């Protein structure tokens, strides 16, 4: 999937760029974005270090497992493959909370920590597990109780009007995300490799073998 989307975006960019006369802008964008990517990653180092440090303290003090225990009934339904008291559960809960509160800066380090812990449970390291996909889907569609600071800055006094629509719209998108993941994870096209060895030869789309 990623192979087609990635290559597709670049091909469309070049082809359309030739026809619209924007080809120089396309070239420039490729070079600029390569630079920007590294700047983003470097910028992340400090924030990551700060939150991972605080997280470590929360972990050592047992705070994370305390929070995770409170939400266990929901978590074991969303992530049936993750043991209820695995540290990943705590990181996932914290990432979700940070997202709901609009703390983007804190959400990323917590989310990456959660991914690392989910990866420990992954028997097939190069392939996403059901839990990882569920986590990402909830993460990107997250219910939002506090508007992003950028939106408040732009909208000024009108921000209060979009508070309720935002909560409702994000609730719908989160439900859609969970439903989509649950539905798609059972489809043969997206099945885990070891889940259906009988169908191994049926799946001939070029997804595998790129590493």
């Amino acid at each position, binding site marked *: 999937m990623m192979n087609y989307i990635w290559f597709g975006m670049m091909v469309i960019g070049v082809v359309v760029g030739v026809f619209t006369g924007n080809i120089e802008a396309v070239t420039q964008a490729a070079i600029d974005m390569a630079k920007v990517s590294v700047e*983003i990653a470097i910028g992340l180092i400090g924030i990551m270090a700060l939150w991972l440090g605080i997280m470590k303290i929360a972990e050592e003090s047992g705070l994370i497992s305390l929070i995770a225990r409170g939400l266990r009934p929901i978590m074991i339904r969303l992530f049936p493959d993750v043991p209820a008291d695995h540290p990943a559960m705590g990181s996932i809960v914290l990432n979700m909370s940070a997202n709901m509160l609009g703390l983007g800066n804190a959400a990323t380090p917590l989310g990456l920590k959660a991914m*690392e812990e989910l990866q420990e449970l992954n028997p097939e*390291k190069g392939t996403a597990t059901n839990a990882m996909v569920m986590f990402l889907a909830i993460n990107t569609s997250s219910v939002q109780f506090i508007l992003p600071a950028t939106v408040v800055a732009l909208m000024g006094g009108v921000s209060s009007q979009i508070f*309720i629509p935002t909560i409702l719209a994000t609730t719908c998108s989160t439900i859609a995300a969970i439903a989509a993941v649950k539905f798609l994870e059972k489809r043969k096209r997206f099945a885990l490799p070891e889940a259906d060895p009988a169908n191994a030869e049926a799946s001939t789309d070029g997804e595998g073998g790129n590493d």
Partner: protein
Amino acid sequence: MIDSITWGLNEVAKYIIPLLLIGIPLYAMSIKRVKVYETFVVGAKDGFTIAIRIIPYLVAILVAVGMFRASGALDLLLQALAPVLTFVGFPPENLPLALMRPLSGSGSLGLLTDLVNEHGADSMYAKIGATMFGSSETTFYVIAVYFGSVGVMRSRHAIPAGLFADFVGAISAVFFCKLLLG
């Protein structure tokens, strides 16, 4: 009523981070006798490796998105879709933002700024746009970074599920704005 709730929540939001920064070490130190300084440093060490590890994935996704954006392909798609959208009640003015949102955070913020500057923050276009912006995430970036950080190559159903959620989020933003603010 809603005014004061929103104001209150955004006011509280200012204090969440400082409170976490002192609250967590305070709990750890006083109740569990954790050596907070040493523990912090151990945890913080991972920040560097994780940030460096995601660079190749970031370069891959952001370069592709950047090329796509700069080519003007989005405008072409928009022209093709505009009549259909007007027919189903989706304001065409909000389509660029809906399409840009999963691809690029700065790009979609730019489009939202355009909407506010052109139609005013009080316009329905701006309200729908701001709701859309708050309702979805830069799905491609998140998937690339999160999977990249652990070296997962095969993302399985993550992209279709994420895009479906973005789609539902955009439609819901239009629906609820028109219903509640129209």
